[in-house]
């Protein structure tokens, strides 16, 4: 599904964010991406979204090299990827329903499709009764559910979650993790960057650990195993 072949990213200021990374993620896999701040997690995700291009090496997503995607085609490529962020990134003046519908409007879904699909995904994340609420009326966990609903409403093949539980208390974080696991069970490949030691250790999933731009560990049922600094 995702393959990095000897990928190096050197920014203009000479900082080497990723150094000769090679990795393969199979379809339907669930992968934690861990590592201290500045290890290269953000660059890894940005390259997957084709926000930045590798200095050297090649990235292949779904049998297609990202190098072959022109600037014009980037939006269409991104539609295959659902994104979830630590800060939810909802549009404050749109209600829950509209926030999810927005992601569909953007990709030219018909109003009929939107009317059918949005209630479905809202039910999936357990927010059917809050569809008229605005983001500022929701708890952090609820907001993250909306953002998850938005991420999956267009049926992406890959879900990238960047610290999805970073702003949540442990109980709520567990709920969100359960949802992400469910999405993974339904066949979506999930890549989750996180600092949450408890979640990583208890999930017993594949862990790719980055440090100073290199892969220091890649274990099938891995653990967090970094000092608790983050």
């Amino acid at each position: 599904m995702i393959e990095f072949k000897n990928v190096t990213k050197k920014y203009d200021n000479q900082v080497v964010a990723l150094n000769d990374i090679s990795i393969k993620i199979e379809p339907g896999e669930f992968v934690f991406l861990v590592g201290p701040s500045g290890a290269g997690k953000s660059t890894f995700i940005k390259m997957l979204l084709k926000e930045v291009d590798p200095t050297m090496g090649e990235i292949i997503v779904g049998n297609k090299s990202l190098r072959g995607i022109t600037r014009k085609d980037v939006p269409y490529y991104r539609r295959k990827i659902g994104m979830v962020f630590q800060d939810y990134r909802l549009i404050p003046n749109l209600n829950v329903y509209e926030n999810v519908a927005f992601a569909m409007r953007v990709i030219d879904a018909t109003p009929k499709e939107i009317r059918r699909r949005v209630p479905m995904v809202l039910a999936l994340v357990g927010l059917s009764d809050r569809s008229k609420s605005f983001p500022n009326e929701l708890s952090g966990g609820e907001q993250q559910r909306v953002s998850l609903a938005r991420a999956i409403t267009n049926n992406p093949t890959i879900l990238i979650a960047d610290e999805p539980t970073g702003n949540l208390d442990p109980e709520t974080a567990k709920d969100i993790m359960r949802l992400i696991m469910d999405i993974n069970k339904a066949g979506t490949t999930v890549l989750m960057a996180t600092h949450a030691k408890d979640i990583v250790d208890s999930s017993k999933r594949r862990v790719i650990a980055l440090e100073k731009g290199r892969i220091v560990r890649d274990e099938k049922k891995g653990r967090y195993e970094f000092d608790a600094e983050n």
Partner: protein
Amino acid sequence: MMQKIRMFVFDALKSLKRNKTITVASVITVAATLFIFGVFLLVAQTINMGVESVESKVEIKVYLIDQITTAERNNIETILGSVEGVREVVYESKEEAFEQFKERLGEDNAILAGFSEDRNPLPNSYVVSLLEPEAAMRVENALDNVRGVEDVGNERETVERIIGLAKIIRTMGVVIFVILVLVSLFLISNTIKLTVYARRREIGIMKFVGATDWFIRWPFLIEGMIMGLIGGVISVAVVYFSYQLIYADITQSLFYAELVTPDQILSSFSWQFGITGIVIGALGSFIALKRFLDV
């Protein structure tokens, strides 16, 4: 498609309403720019029309020697007829010239007392009226060394001055137009930048859910075009009404028939300004968005 356009326009209107102060400021900016431009255009057009009418009235005189033969006259007529830019050639006998001169002097014709029809100092001539002042040179060249021609009375300096003036006015018009357009582009693009900035999170979200650049751009372009159009309409209205106020005064005090009429402002300025406003608005938005879309 229609559905999408409706959505874009709806978004644009919503955003215009949300950023009311900024919107009003931009519209006023465009209106002011186009108003200044309109005033300038009026002045330029009036001068231009004047110049054109002077240009079309330019004529030169070909003076003939008194002992001219018919063959020589015929020859000169043929030559004049073949020069490019000559509109009309009229023969003026020395008697006619004398009468006209007397008439032009009016009450002062007493100075002609010593002269009469038979003691007439004026020569026979051809009055050559031209389509364009530049033809004067050609006439002069064509008649160089032709027998029977005494002299070509060429008001070259006047002609050249007219041509020069017309050129300066036209160049100035273009320069001022370009400067004013750049100023309004700058102002509109800054305005749109503010609304884009206010919505940068939204744009970011659009980008990561896979919106195309044009999908993001359209509402802002429409926003800019609406502002430009409103600005254009306001400026035309202001130019029209203020011109109408002074038009009567000008035509009365200036004995000068060829002025742009107020109706011409409505018939030609209105759509020109509307389109200019729309183009400026769209371009301004486009420029403003450039940086935000490069992600």
